[in-house]
């Protein structure tokens, strides 16, 4: 395989991996945008989403699209519940308290799941045929295309909600200043609650897609993708929606390129090295500008 060939193949690998990071990063960034909380439990919400999708497929014998929707709805409600029980009582507490609570919620979700579903990894049944398409010398398979496709659709829907609906307007207002938004008659609690719902639903979608694509889920699967998505969100500029997507895709591509052309040993070092560089030289992220509209 020559250089260009390998380069394009790694680009395909990177974009499909990056789409997953992007979906998770969106939830991080939305929640940060409104209540300035780095929700460390977000990776575990993604894990719960994967399990709900798994049980929808295996126990309720649904096909993939209904299972994806069920998982998104249930996980969205779980996200609202977590916010209501764990974060809302701390709304006016110092930010460090709510951050520590987020870590607590993360452990709670991990180990509660481990108790209920056992630590043994589960394998997703083959819900869609995985045909490998050889486009010239490149290999793209059906599942990779499905991941990129669903990610794209969800992002279009999200953009519509944020830009065109009343809820989106309220979310954007709350992200500027929660208190001022409240003075303007916006029910901030409800907006925050919906934000958790949407963010969690996106994470659930990512969880189900990962389960289908990589065929294996376990209660601790959310830790690493959660951290990587956090890096992606910071890379793109935390609090900015297009930034999360850009950051996710860039991170996925960088990981693939580092593995392909340097050494896979350096892959995670590169991912977290980027976090350090961004924080040093452009703390607001690639798309971060002070006057930029945030959600």
């Amino acid at each position, binding site marked *: *395989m020559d250089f260009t060939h*390998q380069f394009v*193949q*790694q680009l395909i*690998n*990177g974009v499909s*991996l990056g789409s997953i990071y992007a979906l998770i990063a969106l939830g991080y960034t939305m929640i940060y945008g409104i209540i300035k909380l780095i929700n460390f439990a977000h990776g575990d919400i993604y894990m719960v989403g994967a399990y709900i999708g798994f049980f929808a497929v295996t126990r309720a014998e649904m096909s993939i699209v209904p299972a994806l929707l069920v998982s998104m709805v249930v996980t969205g409600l779980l996200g609202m519940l977590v916010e209501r029980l764990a974060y809302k009582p701390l709304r006016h507490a110092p930010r460090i308290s709510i951050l520590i609570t987020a870590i607590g919620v993360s452990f709670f979700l991990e*180990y509660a799941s*481990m108790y209920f579903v*056992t*630590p*043994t*990894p589960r*394998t997703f049944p*083959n819900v869609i045929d*995985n045909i*490998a398409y050889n486009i010239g010398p490149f*290999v793209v*398979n059906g599942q990779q295309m499905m991941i990129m496709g669903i990610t794209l659709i969800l992002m279009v829907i999200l953009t519509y909600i944020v830009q065109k609906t009343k809820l989106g307007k309220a979310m954007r207002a709350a992200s500027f200043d929660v208190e001022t938004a409240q003075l303007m008659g916006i029910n901030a609690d409800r907006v925050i609650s919906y934000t958790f719902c949407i963010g969690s639903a996106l994470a659930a979608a990512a969880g189900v897609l*990962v389960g289908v694509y*990589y*065929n*294996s889920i*376990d209660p*601790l*699967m959310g*830790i*690493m*993708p959660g951290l990587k998505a956090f890096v992606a969100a910071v890379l793109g500029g935390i609090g900015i929606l297009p930034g999360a997507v850009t950051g996710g895709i860039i991170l996925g591509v960088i*990981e*693939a*390129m*580092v*593995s*392909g*052309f340097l*050494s*896979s*040993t350096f*892959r*995670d070092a590169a991912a977290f090295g980027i976090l350090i560089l961004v924080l040093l030289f452009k703390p607001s992220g690639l798309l971060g500008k002070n006057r930029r509209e945030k959600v």
Partner: protein
Amino acid sequence: MFFKKKAMRLASAVLGIAMLGSVFAGCGDEAASSDDIKVGANFELTGNQANYGTACMEGLKLAVKEANEAGGINGKKITIIEADTKSEAAESVNAATKLISDDKVVAIVGPAVTANVIAESDVATQNKVPIVAPAATNPNVTVKDGELKPFVFRSCFIDPQQGTVMAQFAARDLKAKTAVMYIDSSSDYSKSLGKVFKETFEANGGKVVMEEAFLAKDQDFKAALTKIKTANADVIFVPCYYEEAGKIVKQAREMGISCPLLGTDGWDDPKVADIAGADALNNTFFSTHYFDQDAEAQSFIETFKKEYGHAPNVFAALGYDCGKLLIDALKRASSLDGDAIRQAIEATKDLQVATAKITMDPSNHNPIKEAVIIENKDGKYELKAKIAPEK
């Protein structure tokens, strides 16, 4: 001076009698209060290694249950005291300390993972309580700086044996000239196997042309596999645990890598086939502890299925073996003293356990046990070879 000496003698005699008395008293008390022999089971019950620890625990419990139903140890029943290492080395030490000082166990079985056993071994040595590790294959489990740890044993083979076996198999049977190693850089197990494989493979005239690494719990391996594909090697050696093994095989085949993939005992789990699919697994080989269609293993597999409702994986089999080894030693031990149990374990000879017939080597506390090589063929295991360790 003379007087002093006499006084000392008198004092020590009095003290001696008193101690003797207390020993008898102790015996009487023990017989009255409990008939049970307490054995500690220190395993990874929670945390990211819990799937190994819980499987070992199931096997151990089955071995103990069978022994108790068959009359126990000279009429006494064995009770298992469970402890959780939480998949952390420091917690493993705490749990072992608690088992020894609070629960007064006579011996400890576990943990499953090498690092946790190594952490706990100093506590065992200090307190003269024997530990037997069911699945820790790293050589450093039973020795430290070239010296044997007197109270630490294992009931499985060691990594160099597996690495050697697979490298020889690749070079001689598969006639491979070039190999790629794809190693889990977060695991000592994977790294030490890689080292031995490389040495043996190159000593047999082969060449390792590329070394790549991943981390446990990774989901995506395609980037590295795309690169590995360019090396066009005859075989790819992937020593790792089953979850990653399944994903790597699946993704390697999706990327169009068709050469034989070689693995180690971490691959020995039905989950590999679940994750990768039977077709992708064709043309893969791994070394492991036993062949599950061997006649000797059948009674274990049947009883296990009856007890738990699912088939045992290799960790369950090793946990069971470990229980068998300890129970056999307890039966032969002259007393329940740490030294007596240690000597009894060292004298283990031709003991039939679920996976093989084992004899303990007193010089290194490793059992002399053959490794098997298994080929995955259309979703089934096929025995390729049984190889005894080289002396």
